[in-house]
């Protein structure tokens, strides 16, 4: 997008705010507004949503007028891997137990490090599993299942 929009960050950020503001107002239509003396559940969020729409529009406008330094690329790979590691933990911790779950988090999150070395990652995984089982499960008594089944 060379030359097109001047402040790309601001335009995108403004659109994000606009989206959230609109969502707040639109979803908030279902909630009773009440009166200023007895404010209903919809009163405060609707005001805030409207305010956010105005602010978002302002940020978009600024982005169109003021030049900003070029925005860095969105790194899709690391983003997906890091977030998948967390999601994997959520999916596996109750079914497979903490040992496998922690191992998965270490393995997947280490992938985008740029210097992935198997021996390092395996040692790290062992240390973290030891910590999770020794300190958190037995030491502090957090109710984790250790192994599957």
């Amino acid at each position, binding site marked *: 997008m060379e030359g097109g929009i001047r402040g790309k*960050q*601001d335009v*995108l*950020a403004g659109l*994000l*705010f606009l989206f*959230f*503001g609109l969502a*707040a107002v639109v979803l*908030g239509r279902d*909630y009773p507004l009440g*009166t*200023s*003396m*007895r*404010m*209903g*559940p919809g*009163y*405060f*969020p609707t005001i*805030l*949503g409207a305010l*956010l729409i105005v*602010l*978002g529009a*302002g*940020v978009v406008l*600024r982005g169109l007028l003021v030049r900003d330094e070029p*925005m*860095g690329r*969105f*790194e899709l790979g690391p983003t997906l891997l*890091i*977030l998948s*590691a*967390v*999601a994997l*933990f*959520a999916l596996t*911790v*109750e079914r497979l137990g*903490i040992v496998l*779950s*922690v191992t998965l*988090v*270490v393995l997947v*999150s*280490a992938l985008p*490090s*740029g*210097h992935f070395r198997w021996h*390092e990652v395996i040692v*790290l995984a062992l*240390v973290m599993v030891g910590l*999770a089982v020794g300190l958190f499960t037995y030491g*502090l*008594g*957090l*109710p984790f299942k250790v192994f599957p089944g």
Partner: protein
Amino acid sequence: MDLLANLAMGFAVALTWHNIAFCLLGVSLGTLVGVLPGIGPVATIAMLLPITFHFEPASALIMLAGIYYGAQYGGSTTSILINLPGEVSSVVTCLDGYQMARQGRAGPALAIAALGSFFAGCVSTLLVAMFAPPLAELAFKFGPAERFSLMLLGLVAAVILARGSLLKAVAMIVLGILLGLVGADPEVGRMRYTFGLPELTDGIGFVVVAMGIFAFGEIIANLEQREEREVFTKNIKGLWPTREDFRASWKAVLRGTAIGSLLGILPGGGAVLGSFAAYMVEKKIARDPSRFGKGAIEGVAAPESANNAAAQTSFIPLLTLGIPSNAVMALMVGAMIIHGIQPGPQVMTERPELFWGMIASMWVGNLLLVILNLPLIGIWVKLLTVPYRLLYPAIMVLCCIGIYSLNNSVFDVGVAVVFGFLGYVFIKLKCEPAPLLLGFVLGPMLEENLRKAMTISRGDPSVFFTRPLSLSMLTVAAILLVIMIVPTVRRGRDEAFQES
């Protein structure tokens, strides 16, 4: 004297072996995360919050507080040695600290930072002890209108604290408040923005948001920059500063302490604002401002004193008014609530041992920190050689365990994924996430007090302007806003942030 009797009671609590151990644990962890770039006190405290449930309340709070001010000490080490701030509050320390290290004077820089922090810590502990009781008295006079205005003032102050665009900072606060309102309406129980998910009835967990944004979002952003670090470890010859160094820096330490203490009390303030302001002042009043950025010792002494002072005085609004002034204090609220303590002025009267014990522990903690950071500096320096590629998967594991064990909820971990993504997007779009978090915490309180105030006044909004305390806070907020819009001040602020 009341103060002495109270402090004596506090030390009786803080000086038990048990609590000294927790204090040591807290400040060591604080130094550790302070030294390590890429993980800060917010993520750490959030991570440990669920575990503190198993401790006694006083021990838990002593440890968590130690993490916050301990991180201020540790942050300076990284700034000075590798020109990479371990904490945001140590950003300005890089400017002169790193230059000192390059000139082979890393030792004196580290020593002055630690000694300045210690002095500031002692003074601000005393300040907390002195000012908290009268402020708590005042707080009992607060009605919903005053509380609403005070929180508004805090949010305005948070805007100034944020880097970059003001407009975006305000928008982030509003978005934060909105996110804070998710869940059952406090008065009528109507579900708001829950999309029919029963897990959201009590709202989105604060820890979940904090970890998502400050841990996962940060990690993704950090992975983009694979910088080579240059560590000046060989250059630490003598630790002790020369007589000249002391002469040059004692006034800077005093000024830094004063500025930090003052800005710490301000809701929305905290360690970051304090260190920036202190550095700017030093540069302004210096006879030869051109020395700054080239290894001026005042440029290390002032901000390091200020950030530690501010870290401690920022407990004042929390302990007296029950209003958290920054993200760390918001986590402290969470810690208190876990133990069934409602933060606010009544803590001092109902749980004096807790209140004074925590204050006394700050002094103990500062003493421990000087020991940890001067004779033992070598250990922390070694830690800097641990590569990030080994560090962040470990952080990931600890965060996952922390979020899950808060409520034993898989759902919470899933929500953290969403906020991790949002956090990364915010960083990319240059939207500072700290104001969002503050808005998120204050949101529900803001709404509750607004509704109460309006009901009491029978729907007349003038109540906020006719009650003197409320009016004065709104006036201060308005003045701050106007000052921020004045072009010259804005430029000054931009410059200050630019230098970092």
